[in-house]
């Protein structure tokens, strides 16, 4: 991946950060990401990120689990080795509900977590560029990408006015989901808002 230049502004208060995100987007800067120590509800909307599709993935994995259980058990008990237990039906659906339910939950949970790790590119031994070590402690770190049109000094003073109290420039190799971002594929809903 290409090495890009970023201006990194660090905020102390999430309320200030919220307004700053708004200002940066309105001014048309290319907002790369905001790193926060805890989830901040509404920040994704403010940044214009789309909804995550993890719930949909979970549903699909879930019905895969249900189907696996139903097919597996009916193959075993009704086709491969039917047992006559007091003349009861081989296809004993009510008795299979517990296992069908459990496999639904199991497939859905495991699938969603793997999807989550895949989408976020998270795994043991994965190395990533961390813009600020305090982003996992107490700072709210906004990272703005410098394009060829961006005036770096202007951007820095803009961030300062927006409330950032530590500002620096970093060159970083971009990660996986940044890669598709650079092709304007995503993650922002409306790439047309990027003006400068």
């Amino acid at each position: 991946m290409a090495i890009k230049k970023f201006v990194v502004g660090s905020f102390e208060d999430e309320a200030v950060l919220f307004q700053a995100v708004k200002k940066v987007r309105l001014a048309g800067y290319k907002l790369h990401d905001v790193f926060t120590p805890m989830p901040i509800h509404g920040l994704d909307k403010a940044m214009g990120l789309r909804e995550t599709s993890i719930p949909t993935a979970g549903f699909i994995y879930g019905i895969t689990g249900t189907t696996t259980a139903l097919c597996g058990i009916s193959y075993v008990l009704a086709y491969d080795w039917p047992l006559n237990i007091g003349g009861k039906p081989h296809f004993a659906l009510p008795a299979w509900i517990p296992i069908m339910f459990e496999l639904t939950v199991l497939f859905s949970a495991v699938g969603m977590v793997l999807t989550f790790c895949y989408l976020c590119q998270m795994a043991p031994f994965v190395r990533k560029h961390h813009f600020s070590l305090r982003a996992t402690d107490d700072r709210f770190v906004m990272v703005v990408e410098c394009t060829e049109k961006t005036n770096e000094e202007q951007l820095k003073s803009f961030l300062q006015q927006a409330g950032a109290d530590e500002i620096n420039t970093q060159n970083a190799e971009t990660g996986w989901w940044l890669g598709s971002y650079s092709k304007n594929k995503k993650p922002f809903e409306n790439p047309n808002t990027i003006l400068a």
Partner: protein
Amino acid sequence: MALLKYESQVRPPLIEGDKSYHQITEDIVRPIEARPSKLWWFGFIFAVLLLIFGIFSVTREVIYGIGQWNLHKTVGWGWDITNFVWWVGIGHAGTLISAILLLFRQGWRTGVNRAAEAMTIFAVMCAGQFPIWHMGRVWMAFFVLPYPNTRGSLWPNFNSPLLWDVFAVGTYFTVSVLFWYCGLLPDLATVRDRAKLKWRKFFYGLTSFGWSGSTKHWQRHESLSLILAGLATPLVLSVHTIVSFDFATSVIPGWHTTIFPPYFVAGAVFSGFAMVQTLLIITRRVFRLQEYITLEHIDVMNKIIVTTGSIVGIAYLTELFVAWYSQNPYEQSQFMQSRANLFTPYGWAYYIMMSCNVLSPQIFWSRKMRRNLTVTFFMSIIVNIGMWFERFVIIVSSIYRDYLPSSWATYYSPSIWEVGFYLGTFGLFFTCYFLFSKFFPVIALAEIKHILKKSGDNYKGKMGEAERETPEAFAHEMAHAH
């Protein structure tokens, strides 16, 4: 700003003291970065010794067979299955706190959920030991797995509650681990980013999976947690329901009872919360986390204990009523003689169960008692003893007198190796818990930070203006800006 949700001033703060985000990190990560105390070493070594005794007891059982345990005809399930049900039940409180209270948006769960979930995982690990080693020829354990084989092909019986149990407990364990670990990722990243020592950087770098705190990742993380909670909620109810099916689908008087599923689930939550209290009262003291696990948390959990304890009490009385109302002589003999009659061989166990589970928790109607740590700690142990006896009463007193007096068993009491196995699972549980509390943040850092500005002592009251703008309104504004 809508991101700072306003919370009623009537509610007491959940985080005491003048805290900032950084202070929270310091307080919670301190035990990980400090050297373990003498008390920690003492507890850890004691737990390991218990574990070794447990391993020794199990080894004897493997070598000599389950005759090592005093099981006999007709008592084929004794301490082992009692312990299995007991440990599984203890696990349920962790999932209740982490999943069900997440769905109900209970802020107080954040102080206790991490430790409670860890407790769940370790308790289920302990529970799993019992059915496995009870198999006797444990090297044949893979026979229960459904895979194409050359034995005929011999499949497990999917209509059997015992096999449902394998799936239920297996799924429960897996989902609990995933849920717990996903919650841990951001906190492990916090420890990683503070680490000065090389091994710590390596270890937490490895375990935090490269978490960065990106907003997109948080968005996915929140969504994932919510859905996992939604899955874990029916799952936790299903697990103890299925455990109760092990008994309820049989035709043994005393087991063959339709109220078992809700009754078992309530009992599981009851004993689980008692175990959470035991662990957290020690944890908050040892790691000086009283400002995060406050008396308020203890109070709330005691309310749950008195509620579920009373539900269990109603279930006991319902059983007695139904036995009388059924006019079935076997049911009546089971409940009126084998259990409620103090002068039958196991009558004493029934009355220990009744007094520990139903009578003694009633003390928690008093607010003063709910907030008294000594009383709470003592009661948490009493409740767990009571809940152990509940399972013992259900299992043993139902089977030690078979239909014919000729097969009325001699008195069943466990052998030292059966007891040793039980003690060994305590060793396993506490070894895991001590390691967890040393190497992982025992309180969910990110979640505590999330509620700081609405429930923190120093922020409550400043939040009157907080609710002016909703994120939806902001998004709307953004959409019309261009």
